[in-house]
């Protein structure tokens, strides 16, 4: 079991550190501002003959966040409580814990921070600590951070170090440290210029303070010692001028422990360095705008600690989202692509065409066209067969949105996807074509009905699907949703859902009941596995 900071030892310390803040808050004139957020997601699961037994009887994920700020001082904490985590969430989330506690002082040019913090270097390929409650991920770092910038922010520097969170508490078995520098050349030498050119660089180190016995054994068997330090670095450039921007980033990663896949489902343990290249550009000309992204990854999985246990989304130190479009329609997101961190290269592009109001094609209310495509290939040396790589994933998505009059608007959406179940190790792929009509009709300024009709055509996996959704809204408080996904090509299972939501100010409550299919739940291009379940989910969110 991994050693973690114990709540019993921490809580009294936290209490006494916060006491001055609490006492001070009684002084009305200078108590500062307090903000907070409360979120509770709870579910009841039922057995369902169509999809199998319930994954659990119930689950509940609860979060409370409080922040206090007065002038340049701020402090805050986050508490989480998982009496039993929702199905599909990392198993490390169990019990209650203070998952974030910080004190911060921000001067005119200097910032000093003690406690937990989130940090991202560049695009996050090298290192990212962030929170995503849909994924059950929060790898905030508990330690210290200092940053400095010149007046006008032409030069910025920051240094940090600490223990990344794993489960509910910081993991003391592994530490990270980093240094980040940023120089805005145009601001420094020609502040009035419309150009922007920034050069950035970072170095990091992950320090393994403890190593799992199983990992040590495998390393010794394979004939190498595990390094204590896993260094990393990145060099970045950002240029922008009026409607154009270009970003380039190269990341190098020191030798790390890898289980290399071999033919016949065998594994070979090795120490391998990693690297990544990312180039992104976006531009706008007249009614057109677009972006293109090129990315290559080689051995870039970065974990808080090495383990022989099943991979957990909570055990991550960097951000490797899938390169393709993140789908929002039910059937288009049925089989999402998940990044192959061992080795892949891909290209992704977006084109937006805004037909302005009053033009021949735009009509009285305007029209929008969006085309998005991606092509991803696995790198041959990262595949078990070491053959020439094949296609890992490609898609093309087109959506056309038009408002016909003050009351009626439609979206036509087509997504053509091809996904390799072996990440390009074999030539065989699964193809699926998704067609969606999405219409919104406003009965009055506050009452509206939205209907989605969807069809998925495929000759592979579970073959054809159809889906429909109806959402009635009464602004600004109420909405009711009914939906069904039906796999008529193979299993004949319906996935009915009914939901209602009420919101007022920053308070939102929603209840959803029905049957849910197993599959990947993705957020920000990162995915976790969700088992099939039938039941009801209650979500309450409040910020103040």
């Amino acid at each position: 079991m991994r050693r973690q900071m114990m709540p019993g030892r921490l809580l009294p310390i936290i209490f006494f550190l916060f006491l001055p803040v609490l006492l001070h808050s009684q002084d009305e004139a200078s108590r500062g501002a307090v903000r907070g957020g409360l979120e509770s997601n709870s579910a009841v699961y039922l057995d369902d003959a169509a999809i199998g037994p319930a994954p659990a009887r119930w689950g509940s994920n609860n979060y409370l966040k409080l922040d206090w700020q007065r002038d340049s001082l701020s402090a805050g904490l986050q508490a989480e409580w998982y009496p039993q985590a929702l199905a599909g969430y990392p198993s490390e989330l169990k019990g209650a814990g203070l998952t974030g506690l910080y004190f911060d002082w921000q001067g005119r040019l200097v910032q000093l921070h003690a406690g937990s913090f989130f940090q991202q270097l560049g695009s996050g390929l090298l290192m990212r600590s962030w929170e995503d409650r849909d994924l059950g991920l929060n790898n905030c770092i508990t330690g210290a951070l200092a940053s400095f910038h010149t007046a006008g922010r032409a030069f910025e520097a920051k240094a940090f170090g600490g223990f990344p969170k794993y489960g509910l508490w910081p993991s003391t078995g592994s530490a990270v440290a980093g240094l980040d520098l940023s120089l805005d050349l145009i601001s420094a030498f020609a502040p009035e210029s419309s150009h922007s050119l920034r050069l950035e660089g970072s170095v990091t180190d992950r320090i393994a303070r403890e190593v799992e016995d199983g990992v040590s054994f495998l390393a010794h068997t394979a004939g190498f010692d595990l390094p204590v330090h896993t260094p990393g670095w990145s060099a970045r450039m950002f240029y922008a001028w009026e409607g154009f921007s270009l970003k380039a980033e190269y990341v190098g990663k020191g030798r790390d422990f890898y289980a290399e896949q071999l033919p016949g489902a065998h594994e070979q343990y090795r120490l391998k360095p990693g690297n990544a290249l990312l180039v992104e550009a976006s531009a706008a000309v007249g009614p057109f705008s677009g972006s293109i992204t090129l990315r290559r990854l080689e051995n870039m999985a970065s974990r808080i600690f090495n383990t022989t246990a099943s991979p957990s989304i909570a055990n991550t130190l960097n951000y490797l989202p899938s390169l393709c479009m993140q789908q929002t329609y039910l059937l288009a997101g049925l089989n999402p692509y998940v990044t192959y961190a061992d080795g892949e290269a891909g290209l992704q592009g977006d084109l937006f065409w805004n037909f302005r109001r009053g033009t021949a094609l735009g009509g009285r209310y305007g029209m929008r066209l969006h085309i998005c495509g991606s092509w991803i290939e696995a790198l041959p040396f990262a595949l078990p067969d070491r053959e020439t790589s094949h296609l890992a994933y490609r898609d093309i998505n087109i959506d056309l949105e038009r408002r016909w009059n003050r009351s009626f608007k439609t979206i036509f959406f087509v997504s053509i996807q091809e996904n390799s179940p072996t990440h390009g190790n074999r030539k065989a792929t699964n193809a699926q074509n998704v067609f969606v009509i999405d219409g919104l009709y406003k009965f009055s300024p506050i009452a509206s009905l939205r209907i989605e009709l969807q069809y998925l055509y495929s000759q592979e996996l579970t073959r054809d699907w159809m889906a429909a959704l109806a959402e009635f809204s009464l602004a600004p408080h109420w909405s009711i949703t009914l939906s069904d996904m039906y796999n008529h090509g193979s299993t004949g299972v319906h996935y009915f859902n009914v939901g209602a939501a009420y919101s007022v100010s920053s308070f939102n409550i929603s209840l959803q009941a029905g049957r849910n299919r197993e599959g990947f739940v993705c957020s920000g291009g990162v995915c976790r596995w969700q088992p099939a379940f039938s039941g009801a989910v209650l979500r309450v969110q409040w910020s103040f």
Partner: protein
Amino acid sequence: MKRLAIIIALLFSALIRVDAQVIPDVKLSDAGGKTVTAVSLADHKTPFVVSFWMTTCKPCMKELEALTDAVADWEGSFPLRIYAVSVDDSRSLQRAMAMSRNWEGITPLFDPNGDLRRALNISAVPQVFVYDKDGKQFYTHIGYRPGDEQELLSQLRKCAGK
């Protein structure tokens, strides 16, 4: 567990008297990559709207389209200032930049590591805020339903005292 509950209860007690919240002093970036502080959005002359959105959030896009229409139809006695803060992470940042380049009347800003989102304790998008001319929060609403923009504009007029 008991001690945790005590701490949380004590902290809640501190919330009983909470002033109108001022927009936090957090760094964002604009479409040209330059740093913009959230407090600098308050121009001490007119109120303004801040809408949080992301490229994969359909209600967010619907809200921004409704706000674009509202800008086109605006006949108020003060300029309508709307800032759309993308909370897309770095993966979707370029798409958010490309998508927002052709917006009319809405100023896009970017919060790729969620600093302002965390400072305002936003747990779900879209969430929209109306701030007065000095940056004090006047109104907020979570989620979007077609027609919400009418309430938003009504609150904005109230905030401006018009």
